[in-house]
Every structure is written in structure tokens, then in C-alpha cells.
């Protein structure tokens, strides 16, 4: 398993789907999200706070969803066990323009807590 490969994504999916908190706070979180790690992209389908499906490839931001696009080294910093300043969360990454967010912005604001917890679990997937 290497960072951001298919096996890593599946490892992250298992962590997300096993997280007790997400089962509560993500109950109404259903959306398609694109994560672009440099040249590697996935379409992640979230249903009720769990990752239902992961597909490789990319395209435009999904309708009623979001795309998070960033350079590979930005994500590499983010997934460190102790990420450096400015790289420690999805909110600072987007607000600090280290990630480009495209799509339906309301999905981000409505589900920021679940998104934050979900993306934190990428750190555990990287260990």
C-alpha cells in the first residue's frame, strides 16, 4: 500500500465506515466528493456518513457535490501524524487556498464537522 493508491483509499474507507462518531454526525451527509492528490483522483460517494463507493478517475466537480484538488505534497503534509501549521485540517487547507474546492459550496459548510473527522482519518490510514 502506498499513499493515495487504491489500497490506501480502501483502508481509509474502512476507518471512516467504522467510526462511531461519523455514524452520528454524518447521518444526513450524502454527497459525491472528488479527491485529487496531484495526478491521482477518486470519486468518493458518501451515503449517510459512510463511504459507499470509491471510483478512480476524475472530471468536473459532481453535481450536488464537491471536488478537493491539491498538489500531492500538500496532501502528504496533511496526512502526517502531526501535520505542520496550515496543513492540519480541511478547513485551513481550503481557507488558506492550499486546496482548490470546486462544486456546491453548501455541501462543505453543511457537513464540515463530518468532513473534518473523515479527512483526519486519512492520517490513520497512512500509518
Amino acid at each position, binding site marked *: 500500500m502506498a499513499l493515495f493508491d487504491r489500497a490506501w483509499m480502501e483502508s481509509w474507507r474502512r476507518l471512516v465506515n467504522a467510526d462511531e462518531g461519523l455514524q452520528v454526525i454524518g447521518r444526513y451527509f450524502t454527497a459525491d466528493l472528488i479527491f485529487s492528490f496531484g495526478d491521482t483522483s477518486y470519486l468518493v460517494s458518501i451515503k449517510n456518513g459512510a463511504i459507499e463507493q470509491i471510483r478512480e478517475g476524475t472530471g468536473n466537480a459532481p453535481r450536488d457535490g464537491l471536488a478537493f484538488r491539491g498538489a500531492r505534497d500538500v496532501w502528504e503534509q496533511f496526512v502526517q501524524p502531526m501535520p505542520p*501549521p496550515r496543513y492540519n485540517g480541511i478547513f*485551513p487547507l481550503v*481557507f*488558506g487556498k492550499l486546496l482548490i474546492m470546486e462544486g456546491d459550496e453548501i455541501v462543505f*459548510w*453543511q457537513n*464540515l464537522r463530518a468532513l473534518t473527522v473523515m479527512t483526519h482519518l486519512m492520517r490513520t490510514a497512512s500509518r
Partner: protein
Amino acid sequence: MVRLDPIVGRFAYIPYAGTDYRVYFEEAGQGIPLVCLHTAGADCREWRHQLCDSDITRDFRVLAFDLPRHGKSIPPDRWWKEEYRLTAKFYADFVMAFCRTLELQKPVIMGSSMGGNICLHLAARFAEELRALIAVEGCEYSPGGFIDWWWHPHVHGGEVAAAAMLDIMAPQSPENYRWETCWYYAQGGPGVFKGDLYFYSVDHDFRERCGEISGKAPLYFLTGEYDFACTPELAEATAKKIKNAEATAMREIGHFPMSENPALFKRYLMPVLEKILRAGSAAR
């Protein structure tokens, strides 16, 4: 035997501009008044650790109050008819009204985030009445925070504010304290966080005004390296423009030093408090 915090909470009526504001405040300790200002959208609970720290309360009477609309301080009459926007004038005036009503003699003001930013206004306008100011996570200009999503009918304002704040704290800070800070955010009144950010990001702009600060009351900037809204570099650049100011960067701490990691914050705060004490002794 019951375990009690040394904090005493009370309500005081603070007159300002024709209104008697019913204001909640907590205090502990004795000595030099140290008035603590909470962050945007939060309340005085953020200072509970410092209020309970005998190393601080031995020499300082620590007071922390909830601004109107925050915590247990109710809004003024007719609040439901207007959009709340905190202004620099109201905020600075109200801090001084609190100090004067409680007859605090030459207090030290310590504020975080918007409470740090207001320290510049207080230093410019009221230095003669103040002993010193400690701007935690404060700087001359902090744009970008005044956005509609903080108060939008399709977004839970408490949840979104709390979630956004989680990651402007340092990952090294204890998890329970980070989430406790989020809890305060989740409890803010509708539109209050956004209204406070009007001051933080719009009405506060000291880029051309640092020269107005006389330096009669020393100004100490303490800034966490994980605070991307007010970075240590921004605070240091601000301090360089102000007479009798100094800046310290705090490693492994974020935007909420007093509540996210009180033990680590104490290591940076105590030397500043000791300087203030020494200056007081020298002046006698």
C-alpha cells in the same frame, strides 16, 4: 467533600450608551486586575483554566466576562430587529465600561483572537487607564472571516463554527480540550459568531494606525504557530510597528491557547505576567 473550582460567577449591570447591560462575569484571585476577553462567538468559559491557576491568581485578580449576546450575558432590547455587527468602538468602549463600573484600578487586559485585536484599539485610546495589554492571537489586520455561511438558514451555525475552529487549534493540543473549545462554539447564539467577525475581519484594520499607540501601556503579543488566521509572523510585524510592544511565537499551539492547551500556554504567559509584576514593583 465536594470539589469546587475557586471561580465565582456573578452578574453586573454595565451602563453604556443609555442601556444597562446585564453582564455575566467570573473572577478568582486577588491583586492586579487581569481582565480576560473571550474569542469571537464564544464566552468566558475559555479562561477557566487561568481562573483556577493559583500561580496566576496569587498576584492577579482574574476576571473574565461575557460580552452582550455571548454566554450568559443577554442581548440588549430589540436584538431581534437588527443584524448584530460588533464594532471596534462598541467593543473597546464596553471593555472600559466594564472596568470602570467594577472600579478596577489600572487593569491588565488580556484578550484572544478578536480579544487580541481589540487590545490595539484599547492601547491607542485608553493607555493611561491600563497597566498593560496581552494580545493573544492578535495582529493589525485579519481579513476574510466575515462570510455569510456562519449564519445561514441551510447551515447549522453552531456545528459549522465548531468544526471550523477544530483545525485552527494545534494537533498537539489535548483532544478533550480541543473539543471542549468546539463545544463553546457550538453554543453561540444565531449570528453572533458572524457578527463578531465583522469586527475581527472588517472593522479592525490597524495597518495604518499602529503609530497611534503611545506605548504608555506595554503590549505583549503571544501567537500560536498553528493559528493561520493570525500567524506569528503577522503578530511580529505588527509589534515592530508599535512602541513598547513585543511578540512571542508559541510552538505547538493554535488559535485558542488558553483553552486548547492551558499548560503549554502557561509557559508563555507566566514570563509576561512576571514582567508586569516587576514593572508594578519598580513603579512603587
